[in-house]
């Protein structure tokens, strides 16, 4: 059985937000900037014009980390948050009671409330849309002008993502928390 993860060539990101729109259109995500599964983190620039720090303006594309040790799953009282068959962290809207424990527990703040169902939602790795149709890329990966993302099976040593993680240095976010994210930032 596959174990899905994603590698991000984050230095490619130009903060264009094509991924965000593609995600919304593919997955029927509600409009509103507080209703997104995917975002680009960027800090306020440091320095005084014209002596500005370029690195302080780095773009960090991000989304749910699909943690192997997911705090959101641990705190969920109804088991609405669960691990999918390929390691995706999923939410079952039938079981979600909107206690919002998971939203507080997630160190990456990847979760939001879908006002239609009044349940918690987040990135699904396009499991119930693209993957279910047999496609092998996510919407955010596919549309990206600079091809930031590579999605694939971490357990398959032959997969492109496994090869990349073997050959290129990378880091995960907040690694010290022991959540074992499956989003890998390539340096």
């Amino acid at each position, binding site marked *: 059985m596959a174990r899905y993860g994603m590698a991000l060539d984050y*230095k490619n990101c*130009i*903060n*264009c*937000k*094509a991924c*965000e*729109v*593609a995600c919304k*259109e*593919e*997955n*029927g*995500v*509600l*409009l*509103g*900037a*507080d*209703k997104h599964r995917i*975002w680009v*983190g*960027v*800090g*306020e*620039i440091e*320095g*005084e*014009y*014209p002596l*500005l720090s*370029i690195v302080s*303006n780095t*773009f*960090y594309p*991000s989304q749910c980390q699909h943690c192997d040790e997911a705090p959101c799953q641990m705190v969920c009282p109804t088991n609405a948050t669960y691990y999918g068959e390929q390691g995706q962290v999923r939410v079952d809207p039938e079981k979600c009671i909107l206690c919002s424990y998971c939203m507080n527990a997630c160190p*990456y*703040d*990847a979760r939001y409330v879908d006002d*239609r169902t009044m349940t918690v939602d987040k990135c699904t790795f396009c499991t*119930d*849309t*693209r993957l279910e*149709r047999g496609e*092998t*890329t996510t*919407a955010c990966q*596919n*549309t*990206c*002008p*600079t*091809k930031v993302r*590579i*999605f*694939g099976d971490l357990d398959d040593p032959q997969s*492109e993502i496994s090869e990349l993680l073997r050959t290129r240095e990378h*880091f995960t*976010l907040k690694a010290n928390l022991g959540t074992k994210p499956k989003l890998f*930032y390539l340096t």
Partner: protein
Amino acid sequence: MKVEVSRRKFLQGSVALAIAGGTSISVSNLLAKDKGKIEITTKTGTGEATFVPTLCEMCVNKCAAIARVENGVVTKLDPNPRFPKSKNMLCPRGNAGIQALYDPDRLKSPMIRDGKKGSGKFKKVTWDEAYSYIEEKMVKILDEEKDNRSSFLFCAGEGMAEHTFKQFYQAFGSANWLNHSSICLQTVVSGYGVTLGAYPQSDLENAEYVIMAGANRAEAIVTPDTMDMFKRTKGRGTKMICIDPRFTNTAAKADKWLAIKPGTDLAFVLALTYVTITEEIYNKKYVEDNFAGFDKYKQSIIENKYTPQWAEKITGIKATDIIKVAREFMAHAPKSVYYPGRRSTFAKNDFQLRRAMAIFQGLGGGIDCKGGLVFGSKIKLKGHEGLEPIYDRARSRGVDKKKNAVKGEAGYSDCAVVGGGGSWVSWRNRFLEKRMPYNVRGMFIYKHNPVLNMPNSAKTIEMLKKMELVVAIDTMPSDTVMYADVVLPECTYLERTDPVKTFGGVEPSIAQRNKVVEPMFESKPVMEIMQGLTNKISKSIFEITKKHDEEVQDLIKEDGEEAAYAEFDLTKPFHESQEKINEHAVHDHHGAAEELKKHGVYYPDMGKYYKQVSANVHQYYIESRKSYSVNGGKPKTKSGKVECYLANLSTKGVDPMPIWRDEYNFNVPKGKFRLLTGRHAQFTQSGTANNSVLRDLIFENYIWINKRIAKAKDIKFGDNIEVSSSAGKVTIKAYPTEKIAPDTVFFVHGFGQESEALSWAYKNGANDNAVIEDVTEPVYGAAAMHETNVEIRKV
């Protein structure tokens, strides 16, 4: 490594963090209530779907897309990986094309004005009623103007169907055609055109060193440049130097950003040239073989002492940086690119700037070669027969010739050269100032929003009010449409097949926009609108020609009326369906018509070479078949040389080679600010302002004010600021930032719609062109958009 990635922090951190050009904070949900219901995106299904290859029209790039259609509804637009130009990507606007199709504010049926001009009051009519109305007015005007066909102006925005509309203009016989060129890329295209013989592309996939000056490819997306560039910066194959008066997203992705004073790039290039020549680091062989007038130019550069120290004072860029850039550029040449740019006319000296850039590029020999500037090749299409009758009474283009102009001076009062696309601003001003050689009383506008897209909106509105007949063909009730007398609803790009197009480049191809769904409401493709309109008017306006045109009267006597009319039959270019015309256009390429319907893209041996290399990468051509070099490394000018000195320019009052003039110096009176404008990746000018998904990303534009200045003026984030110039004033919210110089302010273009029919865009943010003054550059009369100083005041 400390990384700012929390989603909540991103939201709460500060609104300012999310601002690229505008802002992307969730105020939209609050405002949605009074601004119309926010549409919900449709989740794609897992059942049956059909797929139609099309081309995006959310901006000018024409990226290839595949539309997913479920039960007749377009649920997703995916990138089409087969197109070498767009390389399997769709930008945010491309993804949001669905919302353009399903925008509830779309123009749904033909309308005739039913109130004062500009009141926005229209009555719904049938297509026939609309055509009849146009016919009646047109016959009257043409008769009164004695069949001077130039008493009608035709203008169009960029688009694949622009060609179809232009055929109507040509058959109609007017000489007054205005396109978007003079408010976009006229000076860069012609600057490179006269110097290198063509407006080249840049091989950013292979360049090792790139100077990107005044071109913001991270936010003003151009394909394939945007995709090629940013995968390779930051020590990954290319070193990119960004030169810009403000810190853009391109600056953020650059290896070095050099802040420059607005409008002084020419001094920077002249100093690069000085260093290159005096240090003798240019490609001597290339210059010897391929330059014309080099000695004169060299002499001018040295005698004028365009030293790095001289340029430092003018540009604000340190002399040591200028020396370094010149040396690095030449060290990497020919695999180095001084990026030509696209929308270009920022300052009055722009034409000379582009010439100087082209010559500097040539000094490194990076012309028509891998990693440098490339001309590429193009797959030929067969032409479609148009109609260009000669109307004896039609006057030539409405220009204002200078009386008693002497040799060595511009021959026109507002420019030196009149280009095919004309100068929009000058044309409008001549019309308003009654400097036209004859009456112009009617105009046709296709996919074009002159009220918002060119400097001094107030004057454009005045012009539209003065026109007796304004016919607007558009998909949306734009600010310009509000001033129309007749509105003809075009269908969106997803509802029509457009003229097939050939795309030149290193990897040339042909691509076609195929109809995805049937036109909604009463809307139609331009082709059908032209069919209907010409069927209605052709015979009746021929009667006017018969009445006034002696040549035609003679012709009728000789050949009979039927034969004579055949030459003037306006319906002729529109007899065939677009599909048929496209099949004919690609007839010489075996199998192309089928491929274009099936895959949207065609190029020779596509079946053999096209393949997926990895999840994100596709191969189009094999290396040996790529058109890096098509002209033996030489420029494409008639002389075959890089033209440093153009004597014929001086006869028109234009400097024959690029030099600096004192009037080019950057100067802002105390208490004022230089206003800059620009683009961002989520909007295409004013055309996408009502798109619900995009508007959700950027709700309104903000004015960038240097933080220290803002502090001194007690301006805080979100404060309302009045920005004023001699052209007008606007109110806009403040964004204090260090990304801009203390003497400069900036806000993005595309906001500030006044059309109440745009429920989401109405009065969001400010319209830059309401304050940008109508300054033009002297060569073509192109609008110089960064020459306006403004005052700002907290209100």
